[in-house]
């Protein structure tokens, strides 16, 4: 007899064969869905948060005009505004829109001098020519005009008193509709903002007109007339960038290309010509390593889940093999059976994926802030509040869910399809072929060894000095997989060693009896645990090592008594500075012993962007203990008379640009390119883009200004630091003045905060592994329900049966934890010396937080045993003939 191939058969199989089992054991089905959902949720949440972080980097001018075709910037510092006239002359008579922009940052004034860094809302202040941009804005439909918001008569530039009042008001600020709604701001309301060291009271002149049906301005965007921002930021004759928009119409593409040629031939190497896409890509590149690392971390739970789903589906094959046999003997072909299994897996994937996406979207709202904080601290200013649902990411998550369950279901499906009808009669037939893999312990050893070979490979290198340690990650995967397979051997050995205990303890004897020849399910449960523990403990080692190293670095580097910066500085990309008048008046205070004044500027090297800082090298050398990777060979670099052509670079810089002590580095400055010789390489954990240190007085000469990004003050003995701080805070309310202790604790706090998300990911990973352990035992007991009946008949109480299961759980958890911990040491080592070094260029000391790992082990073992005991009590009551 042979069933005609029809979709009806598959549907019948699904209904009668698959769904019936699911309905019979709704709890287990639910747990399986939850495991998958958790894995997907974490992945989805992180992807959405990453996307939001990337999306938050934008060219704000796009919001009010249209996307520009080209942008020019200075390779270091700002552009002189006088270029505009030169440019217009050069580009005439071409119809090209030229948009000058000056962008800076500002923050709400501080209310607590001991505040946390980044606790105040900071704003991106965009200065554009409010008249000029209307020529471009006129081509897109906007929901409102710039000047027509107070009354209808002011809608046209120049037509009313009100227009001129707003236009000429150097404090007129346009805010986003979001900010107006949130802070209940209305036209004419004051708006206080710290820019540089000044507290400016601006006046709300209107809402930023956005494109109709286009993206709205974020709450943190402020727009002012360009000369007003020039005056407010102290950059009277400068611009951040000049954007160019080619007229639409015929040959726009050719004209666009020609414009680039003209701009490039005009600017030579003085200015950088790029497109907004280049900028976005560079932002994407800048944070790529961080985002990829997070995504990989987010896959821990899914990886653990993969073990569990595989094992659950495989268990189902075993339990349903009698039915499969009947179906096969009825003539249902292998193909249909396999299809029914794969459909079941896919269905599980869809349901789990859907639930996961829902959970993930909720989780993204939480994780987006954590991701945002890190991006803010390390890369660029962003204020992420929520992550938008993204269809592309949703599809990816669902696809991943289905792919995961199909991958997990593939081997069980094949096993099911190939089950010979004769097996109906054989109760303890061979395990499914898929599980054979977990029995080949020699294969585990080979995989683990392959990991050691992979770890020696260099990272992949991308543009801008970005590296990705693919081989490192693969090595980690090999170790986890290999150790997972090898852990069965440990389990067996443990069972053998525990056997003598059985003389006194019946439950232990029963458990050992099972584990001497561990089933595929046991092996998978241990492997899953090994995976979860190894990754979690590995991350704990990395974080602890980082923490210890950071503390040492802070201890050695942060020696000054007071740290002063603009109170507007709230993120890594702040433009806020202290004016020379202010800081020079401070350094002459009689309580000041000496200072280290710091000037910084982003510079574009040919390989990528980095930070150039001017510091008092001699003071730094004398007052701090810089941890050297390659110390200077002489003291020339610290002597002003001899250090004009010398620089110190951070380790991240050295790794990123592959430059060592003695190598030359060419740095652009407004006074032309400077060739510097690297005199030494020091450890720095401040940023991963790397930094170059030069003597501040040379920096000031090259950049023709003395605006400081920070001032470190060493107070004379006998003077009170707090009194001086109080005095300065009262005199300069726009400055932020931190004491040494406060700054140190802030740096540690920010650093720990960047790891907050990893803790959340680890917890979920362990949680999944624990659920998995319970599920394994449920499945094992279901398979052994005949044996359970026998045990009860032999007089074992329910408690004793539960104890036997608890012993089994204890053994599984113990082996999982033990092997996992060993692997975690290897993973920790690799994360520190390979992945971290290759990605961020940071050398850390290896520090194992034994106490934390022991705590984790204890927790996992006790939960594992507890769960096993509970499952045992439940299993003891199972009737011999009950289905799943």
């Amino acid at each position, binding site marked *: 007899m042979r069933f005609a191939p029809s979709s009806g058969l598959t549907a019948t199989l699904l209904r009668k064969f698959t769904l019936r089992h699911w309905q019979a054991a709704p709890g287990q089905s639910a747990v399986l869905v939850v495991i998958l959902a958790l894995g997907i949720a974490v992945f989805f949440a992180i992807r959405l948060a990453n996307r939001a972080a990337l999306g938050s980097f934008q060219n704000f001018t796009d919001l009010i005009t249209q996307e520009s075709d080209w942008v020019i910037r200075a390779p270091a510092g700002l552009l002189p*505004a*006088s270029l*505009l*006239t030169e440019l*217009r002359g050069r*580009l*005439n*008579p*071409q*119809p*090209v829109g*030229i948009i*000058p922009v000056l962008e800076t940052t500002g923050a709400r004034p501080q209310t607590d001098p001991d505040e946390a860094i980044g606790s105040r809302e900071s704003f991106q202040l965009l200065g554009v*020519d409010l*008249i*000029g941009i*209307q*020529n471009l804005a*006129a081509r897109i439909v906007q929901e409102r*005009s710039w000047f027509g918001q107070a009354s209808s*008569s002011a*809608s*046209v*530039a*120049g*037509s*009313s*008193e009100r227009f*001129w009042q707003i*236009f*000429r*008001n*150097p404090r007129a600020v346009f805010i986003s509709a979001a900010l107006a709604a949130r802070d209940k701001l209305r036209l004419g309301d004051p708006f206080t903002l710290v820019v540089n060291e000044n507290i400016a009271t601006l006046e709300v002149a209107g809402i930023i007109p956005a494109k109709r049906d286009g993206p709205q301005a974020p709450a943190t965007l402020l727009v002012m*007339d*360009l*000369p*007003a921002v*020039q*005056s407010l930021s102290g950059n*009277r*004759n400068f611009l951040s960038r000049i954007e160019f928009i080619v*007229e*639409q*119409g*015929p*040959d*726009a593409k050719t*004209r666009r290309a020609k414009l680039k040629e003209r701009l490039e031939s005009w600017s030579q190497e003085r200015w950088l010509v790029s497109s907004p896409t280049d900028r976005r890509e560079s932002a994407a590149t800048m944070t790529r390593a961080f985002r990829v690392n997070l995504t990989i971390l987010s896959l821990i739970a899914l990886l653990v889940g993969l073990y569990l789903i595989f094992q659950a589906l495989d268990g189902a094959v075993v339990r349903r093999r009698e039915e499969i046999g009947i179906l096969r003997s009825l003539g249902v072909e292998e193909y249909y059976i396999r299809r029914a299994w794969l459909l079941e897996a896919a269905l599980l994937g869809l349901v789990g994926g859907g639930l996961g996406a829902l959970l993930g979207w909720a989780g993204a709202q939480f994780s987006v802030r954590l991701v945002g904080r890190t991006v803010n601290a390390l890369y660029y200013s962003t204020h992420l509040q929520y992550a938008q649902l993204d269809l592309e990411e949703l599809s990816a998550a669902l696809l991943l869910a289905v792919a995961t369950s199909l991958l997990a279901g593939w081997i069980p499906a094949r096993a099911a399809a190939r089950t010979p009808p004769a097996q109906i009669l054989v109760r303890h037939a061979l395990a499914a072929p898929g599980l054979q893999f977990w029995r080949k312990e020699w294969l585990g050893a080979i995989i683990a060894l392959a990991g050691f070979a992979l770890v020696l490979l260099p990272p992949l290198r991308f543009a801008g000095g970005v590296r990705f340690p693919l081989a490192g990650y693969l090595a980690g995967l090999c170790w986890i997989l290999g150790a997972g397979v090898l852990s069965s051997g440990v389990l067996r050995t443990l069972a053998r060693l525990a056997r003598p205990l059985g003389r006194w303890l019946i439950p232990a004897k029963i458990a050992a009896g099972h584990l001497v020849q561990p089933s595929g399910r046991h092996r998978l449960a241990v492997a899953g645990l090994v995976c979860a523990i190894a990754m979690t403990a590995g991350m704990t080692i990395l974080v602890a090592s980082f923490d210890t190293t950071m503390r040492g670095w802070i201890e050695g580097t942060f020696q000054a008594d007071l740290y002063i910066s603009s109170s507007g500085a709230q993120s890594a990309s702040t433009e806020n500075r202290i004016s020379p008048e202010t800081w020079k008046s401070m350094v002459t205070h009689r309580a000041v012993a000496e200072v280290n004044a710091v000037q910084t500027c982003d510079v574009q090297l040919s390989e990528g962007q980095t930070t150039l800082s001017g510091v008092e090298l001699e003071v730094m050398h004398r007052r701090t203990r810089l941890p050297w990777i390659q110390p200077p060979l002489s003291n020339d670099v610290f002597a002003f008379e001899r250090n004009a052509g010398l620089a110190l670079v951070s380790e991240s810089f050295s790794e990123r640009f592959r430059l060592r002590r003695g190598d030359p580095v060419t740095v652009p400055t407004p006074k032309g390119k400077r060739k510097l010789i690297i005199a030494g390489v020091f450890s720095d954990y401040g940023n991963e883009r790397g930094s170059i240190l030069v003597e501040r007085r040379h920096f000031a000469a090259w950049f023709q200004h003395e605006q400081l990004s920070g001032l470190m003050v060493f107070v004379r003995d006998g003077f009170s630091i707090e009194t001086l701080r109080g005095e300065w805070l009262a005199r300069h309310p726009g400055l932020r003045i931190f004491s040494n202790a406060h700054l140190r604790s802030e740096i540690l706090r920010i650093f720990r905060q960047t790891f907050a998300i990893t803790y959340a990911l680890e917890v979920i990973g362990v949680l999944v592994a624990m659920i998995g352990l319970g599920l394994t035992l449920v499945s094992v007991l279901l398979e052994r329900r005949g044996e359970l009946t026998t045990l009860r008949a032999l007089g074992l109480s329910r408690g004793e049966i539960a104890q036997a299961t608890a012993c089994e759980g204890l053994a599984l958890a113990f082996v999982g934890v033990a092997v996992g911990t060993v692997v975690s040491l290897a993973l920790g080592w690799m994360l520190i010396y390979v992945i971290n070094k290759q990605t961020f260029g940071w050398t850390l000391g290896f520090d194992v937080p034994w106490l934390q790992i022991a705590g984790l082990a204890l927790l996992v073992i006790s939960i594992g045993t507890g769960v096993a005991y509970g499952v045992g009590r439940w299993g003891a009551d199972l009737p011999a003939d009950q289905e799943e």
Partner: protein
Amino acid sequence: MRPNRILRLWVLTLWKGAAKMRALIPTSAVFSLLWSLAAAEIQPPRKTRDGFAVPQPGHRFEFPTDHGSHPDFKIEWWYVTGHLFGEQGRRFGFQATFFRRSGPLPTNGTMVTARSELFGNEELHLAHMALLDVPGERFIQEERLNRQGWDAESSTNTLAVRNGNWSLSVGTHANGPFSLQGSIRSAAAFSLEMTPVKPLVVFGEKGVSRKGASPTASSYYLTFPRLEVAGVVTLEGRNQVVHGQAWMDHEISSNQLDEDQAGWDWAGLQLKDGREIMAYRIRKKDGSRDPFSQLAWVDANGAVTNFNSGHFTWTTVQTWKSPITGGIYPVRIQLTTTDPISGQPAIFILEPLVFQQELGGVLSGISYWEGACRVRNEKSEDVGSAYLELTGYAGSLTERFQ
């Protein structure tokens, strides 16, 4: 002495009331002048209420300085319209207008503004450019607004006005040739050299063109009524060598319209006989014509004969409704005046070459019709070309010019 100089002296003498010359003046011109004298009897104040300069009778113009910008006046514009002929006689009309408008003058107690040379906030510069492709019936126009500074400026020393990549300038000679450069979006561009074929005309009495009853409603109105044009027009990426004739106005004022005025219609006719007519009628809000409306003949030598409101008629022959603004424009008109040479009535009908010649946009908030026209006489003979300007039909203008 060249005849045109004699005529100008003649007019000037009349202004001064030199009775001995009166016999030489055509009757209609006498009325006109008498009326003008009556109006001019009131010496205008030197400043408007908001502190801007008021055109003063007898002002001595100096060139090229007076071709340049006058920042002490509130409003100023340089206006070029013309008719061009390209390959195979392809006909074009063009218009280029550069407006300058001062903001309120600072008074005591004015807040400190963020002054900047590159980003000024004392003046705004508005500009319009249009090209009419007659056979293609295409009218291409663009509006532009900038603050004075790096991307818009008007020299106070000579004619050199610029707004983005649009410019109008004069070379070393005060009276031309003039150079006009511009592009209209990416659709068209022109580069024209314009050489006056007649001397500069200063319209109005004693150099002041009155626009309303208010003593400040007046302008200095300087015109080159006929310029030979040669240059290149680029349309859809293709260059064409063109030649033709243009009309160039420069008007300087601090108060262009009175409060009861709704708008004006203006026409500049270039007749084939070598004469030109400039006419404007100012419309009051009640629908009537303001008595300060004017018509002036410029003879072949550049001498001007003025006719006041009572001595010419301006009749609507046909209207056209703009599909964009909904404004209804009297685009075909009939002008009836007296030929100062023959003393006979003269009738001119202005026919638009294309109806859609409406300009303006959201930046200025001003929409108006400025179109190339053919001029016919009462026998329907083609006697010349004209540009016709119709304002105040799509919203009130008074507010804009107050």
